[in-house]
């Protein structure tokens, strides 16, 4: 039972990498609470969007999901 986390943009600095695999958590709040406090705080920002398997706005997680944390975009 696992989740794959992706950190985009500057969040990869806070996470210490672009990707990590963690144990399963049933929803986003539980997942974020399981991470390091400083990283959790960065991910809880109103400006960070979350996509689960490429879809924005999902909060309930299933085993094997890919959870991407998307900070404000820099502009194209």
């Amino acid at each position: 039972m696992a989740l794959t986390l992706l950190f985009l943009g500057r969040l990869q600095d806070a996470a210490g990498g672009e990707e990590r695999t963690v144990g399963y958590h049933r929803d986003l709040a539980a997942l974020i609470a399981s991470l390091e406090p400083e990283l959790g705080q960065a991910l809880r920002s109103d400006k960070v969007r979350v996509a689960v398997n490429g879809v924005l706005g999902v909060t309930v997680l299933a085993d094997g999901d890919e959870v991407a944390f998307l900070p404000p975009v820099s502009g194209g």
Partner: protein
Amino acid sequence: MSPDARLIDSPFDPSEELRRFAEAHRQSGGIASFIGQVRAEEGEAAVLELELSHYPPLTLPGMRALATEAGQRWPLDGMLLLHRTGSLSPGEPIVLVAAAARHRRDAFLAADFAMDHLKSEAWFWKRERTAAGWHWVEPRAADHADKARWENSPPI
């Protein structure tokens, strides 16, 4: 109008892309285009390298949706949105937007609209390497103000 939106992971030639776009839209009376490129500057703050990352499930679909919206707002014959990803050097093109229309004003407006939305909404993250090291490029308030111009009616 079927838009041509692409992500490109190696250097591209905007003039060749524009030539093909014009060839594909010979019925259009005008083509407006915009090329964004990495600034080549001198001095301490000069950017030595630009890295563009994206999120595949959202980035290209978002660009396609933007081109489609432009086609709904103005009568276009074609819309081209090309955007680099990966590592870029000073002087290299980052983005090419072109709109083909029967009349010039629709082409100008559609290209302007597409650039303002790419700058403020497209799913790209940039970081720059200067002599001082890497730093992330933050969103600019001016980019959001530029996008807000289009919220009611197109600028005249």
